[in-house]
């Protein structure tokens, strides 16, 4: 099958499911005369996006900035931390269980603290996106590095490679598939972290990102605006997931099953 055919074959099933769900949603709202402040039709959500386009796209840009910086930080911190934990067994035994706290503590509970520590605006939102998305990257990196083939490690040892050289030339490439599994999960979590961070710590008015638009629209019963902002946040998550997948495919596609 040629490439356009392969792409079409993989794209049409989810598109068909989405269209069917949107149709059902529209039908339910119209058939049961549900008021728009409870549940707007998908068409009304689209109209709202169109009407408020300049404001919503600017808000999406702000949320995207916080998400990307937070995700980038969690990727760098996650890979470095996972690598250090794999290299130093005492640190792994002592610190790794504590990193689970990042996963266990609800972000909503600590978001106000982030505002106190980092102030209102972008820094606290970035911190929220980073904190919520860093654990899967640490876990993915550590799992990958600990599953390196023992025979290959032995070969590097025989040839006198240092631990850092072995990490760079063997451990890191070997663990890339599981690092990318962690990054894919982190991509979605970073958007969630940014939106939750914006609920608590973002500026409103002209500077409002999507999270702040959602909270202010909710207070004013502007449900179509809430749905429009949520739809754009979801698209942001999809786009980031897609970019991570694409980079993973470029790096792994030639040699690893997971990227074919």
């Amino acid at each position, binding site marked *: 099958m040629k490439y356009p055919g392969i792409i079409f074959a993989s794209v049409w099933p989810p598109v068909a499911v989405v269209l069917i769900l949107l149709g059902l949603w529209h039908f339910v709202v119209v058939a049961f005369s549900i008021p728009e402040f409870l549940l707007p039709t998908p068409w009304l959500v689209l109209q709202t996006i169109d009407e408020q386009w300049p404001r919503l796209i600017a808000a999406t840009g702000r949320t995207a900035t916080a998400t990307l910086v937070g995700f980038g930080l969690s990727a760098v911190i996650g890979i470095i931390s996972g690598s250090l934990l794999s290299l130093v067994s005492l640190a792994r035994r002592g610190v790794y269980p504590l990193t689970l706290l990042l996963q266990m503590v609800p972000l909503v509970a600590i978001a106000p603290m982030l505002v106190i520590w980092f102030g209102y605006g972008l820094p606290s939102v970035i911190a929220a996106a980073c904190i919520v998305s860093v654990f899967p990257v640490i876990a993915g990196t550590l799992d990958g590095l600990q599953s390196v*083939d023992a*025979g*290959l490690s*032995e*070969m*590097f*040892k*025989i*040839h*006198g*490679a240092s631990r850092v*050289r072995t990490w760079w*030339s*063997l451990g890191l*490439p070997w663990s890339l598939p599981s690092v990318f599994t962690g990054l894919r999960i982190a991509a979605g979590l970073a958007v969630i972290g940014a939106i939750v961070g914006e609920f608590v710590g973002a500026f409103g008015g002209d500077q409002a990102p999507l999270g702040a638009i959602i909270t202010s629209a909710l207070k004013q019963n502007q449900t179509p605006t809430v749905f429009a902002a949520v739809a754009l946040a979801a698209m942001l998550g999809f786009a980031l997931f897609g970019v991570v997948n694409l980079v993973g495919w470029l790096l792994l596609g*030639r*040699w*690893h099953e997971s990227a074919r």
Partner: protein
Amino acid sequence: MTEVNVRLHGVQKIFPGGVEAVAAMDLELSPGRVTALLGPTGCGKSTLLRLIGGVETPTAGSIEIEPEPRIGFCFQEPRLLPWRSVRRNVALPLELAGASSDSCRIEADRRLEMVGLGDAAEFLPAALSGGMRMRAAVARAFIADPNLLLLDEPFAALDEVTRLRLDEEVASLVRKRSITALLVTHSIAEAVFLADEVVVLSPRPARILDRFAIPFDERNAALRGQEGFARLQSRIYDVLLAGMEGGT
């Protein structure tokens, strides 16, 4: 090439948990020649090779290797990095030793030509057959001009025809360079074909049961059909069998 002397003095290896793999062993490898360690599966012969290669440390005794060796290692599996091209896999030992990328490429291409893989330099290991991967591993073992070659049942997983062909190629490469080589195998025919001396080991813990000097000058396909080749195999088999029956 300077020939390497390898001497083992009372070498013993006990693994954590109490398993004794090698019992106080004295052994000297003939410099510039091939020695085969032959023994039943699990007798400790691979451990002995790993001790000489410095991968394991002896529990007791000492290993003397002089002068400082350049070790080439060929394992039971090809151990190729799946993300690297065949050329970059072969060049890995040089790269780890800090050689320039130009010399890595030139040397890797020379070794690939040597094992008949000149056309496959750009391929990834997944694109090669089992025999071709093993050839690439042989090329990698020779990349740093080793004066001590350690072969750990390198062709055990291959079909008979490929295995015999690779045996002939390795025999020719080792003899041309006067490399001190140690071959670990459980195949009597392979040991007799490749080695100048065969050391027969007992079941675990490895002890030397007997040593056989191999008198053949030429190592080619015709050797396998000679009566002397079969007779020697039969004598070694008897020693091996007696050792196994004595050990059980």
